[in-house]
């Protein structure tokens, strides 16, 4: 005999549901959203879609160079960011860091990186090194550090500290403790997060073009401004396919590692 099923906490469910409803209502009013208006104007969206169809395949060859640039930006961003995120993540992991002050400083540094959006970094670097792909690559490096270091420092905090202690016990240094004791336990996670960051970077490099940081996004912005929607559709299609392919490849690599 299993015990009787405990009764549901109805008051809590009702309060929660009412709260969510009220929040939605309040937000909808705030931005002037109305279901009626939305349904009336949906034809505008339909018109845009109709104008975007079919995608202009004759435009495809001219996308090759900007697309390669996007890929290059994403690769450089992932590699530089991936390398720099290693010390940032390690020092932000409570169990591995080199003292409270360093841990606290690094944590906050990481939080600042993550709080500021990739577009901000793109504008910053575009101002600093000039418009173009280099600014994009630098922006994505920072973005990659933010993504990988946050996720990976949490993986590092959850490792078993027995092995690092064993490395200490043979007389190993802090670096040797990291290399032989800590990092091998979190290596799979690191590769996973780096691949994930790469996917994000390919996607982000579309947006980066909007502020002049190079890549396929710059072409997208120009074509959109000229109302060339069939070309815009072609560009979106290319990025979509690229992201899907990258996802498939990284999924395969992750399976290999497991």
């Amino acid at each position, binding site marked *: 005999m299993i015990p009787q099923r405990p009764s549901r906490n109805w008051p809590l469910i009702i309060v929660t549901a009412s709260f969510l409803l009220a929040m939605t209502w309040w937000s909808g009013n705030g931005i002037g959203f109305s279901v009626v208006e939305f349904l009336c104007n949906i034809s505008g969206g339909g018109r845009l879609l109709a104008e975007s169809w079919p995608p202009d395949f004759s435009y495809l060859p001219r996308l090759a160079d900007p697309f390669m640039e996007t890929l290059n930006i994403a690769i450089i961003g992932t590699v530089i960011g991936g390398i720099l995120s290693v010390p940032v993540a390690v020092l932000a992991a409570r169990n591995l860091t080199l003292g409270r002050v360093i841990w606290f400083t690094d944590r906050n540094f990481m939080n600042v990186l993550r709080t500021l959006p990739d577009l901000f970094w793109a504008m910053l670097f575009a101002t600093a090194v000039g418009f173009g792909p280099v600014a994009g690559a630098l922006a994505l490096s920072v973005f990659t550090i933010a993504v990988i270091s946050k996720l990976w420092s949490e993986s590092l905090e959850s490792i078993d500290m*027995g092995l690092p202690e*064993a490395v200490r*016990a*043979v*007389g*190993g*240094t802090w*670096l040797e403790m990291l290399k*032989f004791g800590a990092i*091998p336990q979190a290596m799979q996670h690191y590769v996973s997060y780096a691949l994930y960051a790469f996917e994000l970077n390919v996607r982000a490099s579309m947006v980066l073009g909007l502020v002049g940081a190079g890549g396929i996004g710059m072409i997208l912005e120009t074509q959109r401004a000229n109302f060339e929607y069939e070309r815009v559709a072609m560009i979106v299609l290319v990025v979509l396919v690229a992201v899907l392919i990258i996802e498939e490849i990284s999924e395969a690599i992750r399976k290999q590692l497991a």
Partner: protein
Amino acid sequence: MSDQRGRIRFIDAGVTYPGGTVGMKDMNLEIEPGEFVVIVGSSGAGKSTLLRAVNGLNRLTSGSVEVDGETVSQREGRELRALRKRVGMIFQDFRLVKRLSVINNVLIGRLAHVPGWRTMFNLWPQHDRDIAIRALERVGIPEKAWVRASTLSGGQQQRVGIARALAQEPAIILADEPVASLDPVTTHQIMRDLVRINRELGITTLVNLHFLDLAREYGKRIIGLKHGELVYDGSAKTVTDEDFRDIYGREFTEDDLLEEQQE
């Protein structure tokens, strides 16, 4: 015997953990080079605390521990590493890098002997590789050198753990419940390995055990701990059931004997 390495001395040593738990109290103990000592006591009696004080993994809060006349307790950084280099440790849970090959796990025992820039890039000198291979030969599994550690059985993994300690060319080996995760047959093999290595190489060996019959069978000298204090210190040949009752503070039962676990 005074020129031989591997002497351990506790002088009025004590460990009080944050929170007030006493791990060691008024410990006065001298272990001669080359001795094989088994430490017994119920869980929480301070067996691990005692071992871990020898290589400074646990710090004393009073008194001192000396290894070959050098005080462990005040050492930091480079000095502490120089001392740990001479003290090998074997763990209940083996603590191997599972994704690395056996030989690379054994080479970890050479870390303190090889410059840091070399270890960072796995540029192990041939001399050190030879030592690692010899260590594997001594525990009888040289053919496993290139196998991934994760694919080995428990007993084999513990042999790799022993080989890693041997690769340090240590004066002392500390074995913290080395057989607690192994089956009875493997347990006896590992205990025999430890005894043989102690005899062949003269490495001072301290083993924590919780099975009384194992302690009696393999120990030469038995040390009993209770609430962090030394309550028994004598030969394994003369230890009586009465002594064990005093150490454990209760009648001992079948749970305290490995042989009974096999039934």
